[in-house]
């Protein structure tokens, strides 16, 4: 697949001297969904703003569809749609006019059929003549999406699209994203809801302190970094881990009612069989077994805290 967005060593230093981006390089493939994860203040929004033209890179280059976002900004920006994090809307205008304005702003000729289709898709059609200020928070967020879709972008940035929205709207949002992907739209979303990235992304990027710590295929990432844990519930409680089992990475849980064993799925041997043998030799009776995979969240927390610990 070809990269539709190319980011080359982009740095952004604000006037106050704060370095929000410390050299980010990233290629975003056409048609993929990329989730950018990172804590607040990590540089996610700055990165998006810099790609979209709201702020300028201090150094480095960004191309969208092969067009430089500074020297050939018209061609680059006309491919890009942005759904900002803040609900920024003209309060006194109607939904219809607001969305139509966005289409015009991006130089596209009037197309009321398309706008009707978008508004219906987002369940906004019956609100089309309502002034924005009379809408609920969730509806306003839908309007932001409608505005971004109105000019048929090839690349769509969703900056925290589901921050503070209810479960239903979040599901709707994911469905919309899936629909757009089916239409071939490339989607970049920032989030700090890890389950969101897990649910819809093809690739995950983790950003912290203005640096991209990692970008990887989501499944590969989870397999690669995925530690599994085996939880062994015991028939009888034990006070300490018996000395014979000290060679295993074990942790006592539930007041001695169960043992947690961590193992790596990538290792040649998981050590489970050995553990079981050792346990039966010790005379420990098993009541139940349970395995679970590390979530992206664990991976994320591990990544974000690592460099801090090293520093």
């Amino acid at each position, binding site marked *: 697949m070809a990269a539709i967005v190319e980011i080359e060593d982009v740095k952004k230093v604000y*006037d106050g001297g704060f370095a929000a981006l410390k050299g980010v390089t990233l290629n975003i493939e056409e048609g993929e969904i990329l989730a950018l994860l990172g804590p607040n203040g990590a540089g996610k929004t700055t990165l998006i703003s810099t790609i*979209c033209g709201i702020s300028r890179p201090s150094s480095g280059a960004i191309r969208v569809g092969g067009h430089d976002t500074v020297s050939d900004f*018209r061609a680059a920006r006309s491919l890009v749609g942005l759904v900002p994090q*803040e609900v*920024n*809307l003209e309060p006194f205008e109607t939904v219809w006019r607001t969305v139509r*304005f966005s289409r015009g*702003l*991006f130089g596209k000729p009037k197309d009321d059929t398309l706008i009707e289709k978008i508004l219906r898709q987002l369940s906004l059609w019956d609100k089309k003549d309502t002034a924005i200020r009379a809408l609920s928070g969730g509806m306003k967020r839908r309007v932001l999406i409608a505005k971004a879709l109105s000019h048929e972008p090839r690349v769509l940035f969703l900056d925290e699209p589901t921050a503070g929205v209810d479960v239903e709207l979040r599901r709707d949002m994911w469905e919309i994203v899936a629909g757009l992907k089916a239409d071939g739209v490339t989607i970049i979303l920032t989030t700090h809801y890890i389950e969101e990235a897990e649910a819809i992304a093809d690739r995950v990027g983790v950003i912290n302190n203005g640096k991209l710590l990692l970008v990887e295929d989501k499944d590969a990432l989870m397999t690669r970094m995925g530690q599994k844990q085996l939880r062994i519930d015991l028939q009888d409680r034990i006070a300490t881990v018996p000395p014979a089992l000290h060679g295993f990475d074990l942790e006592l849980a539930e007041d001695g009612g169960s043992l947690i064993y961590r193992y790596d799925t990538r290792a040649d041997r998981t050590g489970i069989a050995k553990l079981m043998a050792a346990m039966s030799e010790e005379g420990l009776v098993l009541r139940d077994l349970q395995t679970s995979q590390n979530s992206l969240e664990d991976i994320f927390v591990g990544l974000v805290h690592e460099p801090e610990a090293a520093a």
Partner: protein
Amino acid sequence: MNWQAVKAIYIFEMARFFRTLMQSFISPVISTSLYFVVFGAAIGSRIEEVEGVSYGAFIVPGLIMLSVITQAISNASFGIYFPKFIGTIYELLSAPINFLEIVMGYVGAAATKAMFIGLVILGTAALFVDLSIQHPIAMLAFMVLTCLSLSLFGFIIGIWAGNFEQLQLVPLLIVTPLVFLGGSFYSISMLPEGWQTVALFNPVVYLISGFRWAFFGMADVPIGLSLLAIAVFTGLCLGAIWWIFKSGWKIRN
């Protein structure tokens, strides 16, 4: 050139104006009528004529200019300040448009509104006094130019302003005094000699003088000088706006 965008901005801005059409229409009618009662009837009965023109008619160009200038500035400054204030400016900055297109949309709409109000005042004034306009085309052209150049100026104020107080500051502290002292209600020749010289440093004098020339064929300063002054002012504003967008001052970091 992204004409669709210019059109979209223009229409969106005009919608704001149409939403409050009654206010936009009634307030200039009322304030103009008040000016005529105060200046035309109360004072005019003591002055009678200025350089051969009845005082009531004499103040018409000044009155129109007073409103057109303040309206152009406030409409244009509010027009661009509001998106900054509520955050919708993100869309302008991420759209495939350049500064010229943004300016044409916003300034065009602000100038249209000011022009509309200017014409309403002209119509209202015609109800009070006998008006004959010697150079109607020049009069309209002058009004359009004034609307445009002052809207450009207002646009700069709107970009500069960091809050609503600042938005009001320049119009209130600088523009209103300049307009009142710019010969709206009197001829510069009525001032003591020293003040006549001072008045020539007031840019508004050139606007009102030129506009009055279009009405009555007489002016405080030569019409050519008036035109030059407008051209220079417009040029300065355009230059400032070009620089603003080039540097991203106050809008793009």
